[in-house]
């Protein structure tokens, strides 16, 4: 099974090769090749998933030796490092594979309509094929080395696709910003992998789990830090870069310069989720390192809250979704951080479906009205019924309305966070931020829906031209909307649990299997069980209440206009300013590292010039200067002009002349000098000998 699974990543890779070489000459610029390739991946991935559903558990893997770095001749160095790579199929992989291939297939399909007639149409498909191959390769990897290779390939594709409209300077800047920002995290992540090789000599996930279960690696240090904590933090940095977590979140909103299907595939459903996937794969190590998990939780919670606040004030429909993505990724990271990693993973999957749907809907809207500014939309409900219906369903899902997928996964994360804060006194900020974010999410998502689809048309011309999209674009919307219902994830399967004779929920069952593999199966004490039960009950009530409150506030503000958003804006004043400018993060980075330091220094010099030099030296000494004018005049003429000014010039030209003598352009004279230097060096080296 594992060998066949390689085909999943291979199909898009072949499509990429064909597309990049001869794509332009093929009929339809070869878009069908990419679509068929990813469809092939989907067809191969489905049986693996069905096996998980029917049997409750899949596990298969195979390894090949990539290279064996031996010592030199005659066995003088007997240390050998063997790098083994391979494929790991377990429950996590099966679920991820289906999610990625399905989302990618639908988005490919959508792109056929959306990108129709664009310049470099064939390259677009080449890039997203390569991206799909890399993402699927990452999911299939059984070790961090190939994982990292695919991770970097995805970064490259992200860079290429953000800068796809290469004639727009903003797109180029955004692509460079995305690439460089994620590079910070990637470099540290690679150090983490090196650390893993250092302490375990392997980066195979199963070997790592086994080693951690045995307790090896404790007490080893890297650069003076405990090795496990070091690796944990480095892995976290990788996630922070890739999943756009605070404080490296700045690239994701700018990445919206890319085509909308790209935003849906890369910057919502898959690549940014890869960071969370990494945390989940490495969860046993993070847990063993103790100090890492609280940091993970706080990073997630802070990201979720800050990004959600920014999303409220955005007017660009894609920017709202981008900040919402950052915020939801924050949820997932928080979920992993508080130990509810199955909830985090579930949110990863549910979020991929509904956020891809939202992005594609926004793409459909943008394609129709040719603007991204929500202030120029409005009243599109009747014009684009299918887009409206699907987007509304996805919005209900992300807002956490019962019956939809987002409710299930988000509620579990919040429950986990609450339980965590109950168990560990003093971490109340995490669930607080979580619940606040839940309310804010509902608020801004409904604001977006109301501004886009409800009310009157704010731009008559654009409204007039708006139209529903063809089927290739609406079918993906409908499928993704259908996946936003809770029953898809929380529903039962045919398998029956052993002790209860009732159908089990397939997702939980699959994740329990993963926990057993990782060696972190939970054995809760009755008291802890009670705490968890209580926390989840409480979380259910609170999250329902805050989501309801968010939707209610949004409705009376943007639908009924009982409250004026403008008034709030004025009331909030500086706070609004802060959020509108995204907490000045871009300015901070640009400013601190590039401009601010230099500018301030210049400012200081200018002030010094103005206040000290001008006032005191120039003005103050004017009188004295008047008196001694003649003396100074003479001095000026003789000493300054003759000696200093002319003298300086003479020295310079003389020095130039001297240096010019060495610069003959004749190779052999240079060689003579070189040999002389070597001899001098050898002479001093020889002094050391006896």
């Amino acid at each position, binding site marked *: 099974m594992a060998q066949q699974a390689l085909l999943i990543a291979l199909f898009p890779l072949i499509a990429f090769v064909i597309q990049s070489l001869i794509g332009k000459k093929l009929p339809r610029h070869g878009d069908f090749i990419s679509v068929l390739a990813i469809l092939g991946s989907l067809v191969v991935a489905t049986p693996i998933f069905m096996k998980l559903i029917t049997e409750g558990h899949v596990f298969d893997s195979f390894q090949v030796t990539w290279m064996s770095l031996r010592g030199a001749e005659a066995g003088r160095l007997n240390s050998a490092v063997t790098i083994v790579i391979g494929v790991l199929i377990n429950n996590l992989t099966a679920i991820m594979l289906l999610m990625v291939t399905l989302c990618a297939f639908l988005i490919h399909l959508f792109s056929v309509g959306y990108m129709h007639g664009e310049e470099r149409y064939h390259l677009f498909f080449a890039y997203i094929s390569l991206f799909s191959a890399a993402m699927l390769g990452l999911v299939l990897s059984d070790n961090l080395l190939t994982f990292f290779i695919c991770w970097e390939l995805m970064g490259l594709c992200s860079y290429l696709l953000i800068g796809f409209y290469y004639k727009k300077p903003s797109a180029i800047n955004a692509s460079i910003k995305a690439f460089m920002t994620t590079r910070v995290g990637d470099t540290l992540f690679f150090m983490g992998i090196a650390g893993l090789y250092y302490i375990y000599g392997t980066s195979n996930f199963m070997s790592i789990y086994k080693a951690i279960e045995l307790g090896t690696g404790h007490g080893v240090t890297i650069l003076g830090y405990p090795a496990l904590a070091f690796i944990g933090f480095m892995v976290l940095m990788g996630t922070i870069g890739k999943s756009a977590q605070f404080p490296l979140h700045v690239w994701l909103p700018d990445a919206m310069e890319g085509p909308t299907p790209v935003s849906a595939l890369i910057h919502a459903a898959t690549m940014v989720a890869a960071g969370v996937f990494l945390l989940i794969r490495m969860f046993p190590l993070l847990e063993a390192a103790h100090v890492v998990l609280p940091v993970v939780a706080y990073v997630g919670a802070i990201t979720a809250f800050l990004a959600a606040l920014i999303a409220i004030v955005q007017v660009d429909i894609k920017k709202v979704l981008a900040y919402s993505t950052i915020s939801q990724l924050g949820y997932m990271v928080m979920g992993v951080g508080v130990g509810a990693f199955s909830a985090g993973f579930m949110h990863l999957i549910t979020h991929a479906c509904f956020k891809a749907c939202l992005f594609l809907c926004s793409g459909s809207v943008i394609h129709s009205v040719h603007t991204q500014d929500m202030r120029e939309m409005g009243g599109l409900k009747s014009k684009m019924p299918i887009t409206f219906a699907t987007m509304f369903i996805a919005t209900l899902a992300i807002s956490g309305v019962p019956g939809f997928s987002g409710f299930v996964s988000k509620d579990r994360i919040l429950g986990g966070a609450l339980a965590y804060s109950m168990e560990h006194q003093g971490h109340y900020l995490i669930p607080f931020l979580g619940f606040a974010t839940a309310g804010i999410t509902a608020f801004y998502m409904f604001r977006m829906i109301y501004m886009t689809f409800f009310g009157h048309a704010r731009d008559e011309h654009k409204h007039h031209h708006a139209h529903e999209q063809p089927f290739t674009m609406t079918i993906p919307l409908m499928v993704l909307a259908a996946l936003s219902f809770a029953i898809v994830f929380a529903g039962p399967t045919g398998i029956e649990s052993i002790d209860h004779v009732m159908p089990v929920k397939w997702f939980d069952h699959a994740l329990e299997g993963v926990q057993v593999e990782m060696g972190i199966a939970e054995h809760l004490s009755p008291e802890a069980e009670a705490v968890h039960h209580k926390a989840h009950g409480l979380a259910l009530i609170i999250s329902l209440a805050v989501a309801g409150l968010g939707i209610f506030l949004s409705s009376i503000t943007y639908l009924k206009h009982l409250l004026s958003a403008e008034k709030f804006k004025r009331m909030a004043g500086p706070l609004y300013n802060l959020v509108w400018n995204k907490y000045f993060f871009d300015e901070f980075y640009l400013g601190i590292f590039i401009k601010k330091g230099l500018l301030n220094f210049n400012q200081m010099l200018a002030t010094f010039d103005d206040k000290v030099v001008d006032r005191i030296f120039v003005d103050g000494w004017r009188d004295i200067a008047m008196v001694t004018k003649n003396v100074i005049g003479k001095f000026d003429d003789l000493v300054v002009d003759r000696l200093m000014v002319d003298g300086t010039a003479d020295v310079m030209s003389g020095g130039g002349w001297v240096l010019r003598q060495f*610069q003959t*352009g004749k190779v*052999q004279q240079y060689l003579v000098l070189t040999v002389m230097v070597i001899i001098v060096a050898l002479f001093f080296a020889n002094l050391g000998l006896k």
Partner: protein
Amino acid sequence: MNHLLSFSSSLQGYLAVGAILFALGIFCVLTRKNAIGILLGIELILNAAGINFVAFSKFRTGLIDGQIVALFIMLIAAAEAAVALAVILRFYRLKQTIDADEASILRN
């Protein structure tokens, strides 16, 4: 005479020949105006390096690593000679001379 014979077949003998060849090569490179003459000097230098490697390989390590490196030196020398002669021919076509001092366009 016996003394000279034992010196010549010792490591020091090889090193001495290598050093002399090296010095002659450097001298040749530094004094000849003709670019091909410079190339001759470079070949001498490379051969001197090869002799040293082979000598240490025989008299000290007893492994063939030194010979492998000498082989690599030989191959690089061949590649270098091919490229250098192509450059010289090109230069000759351009300036009708192969005087190395004439190759000073970069100065101005």
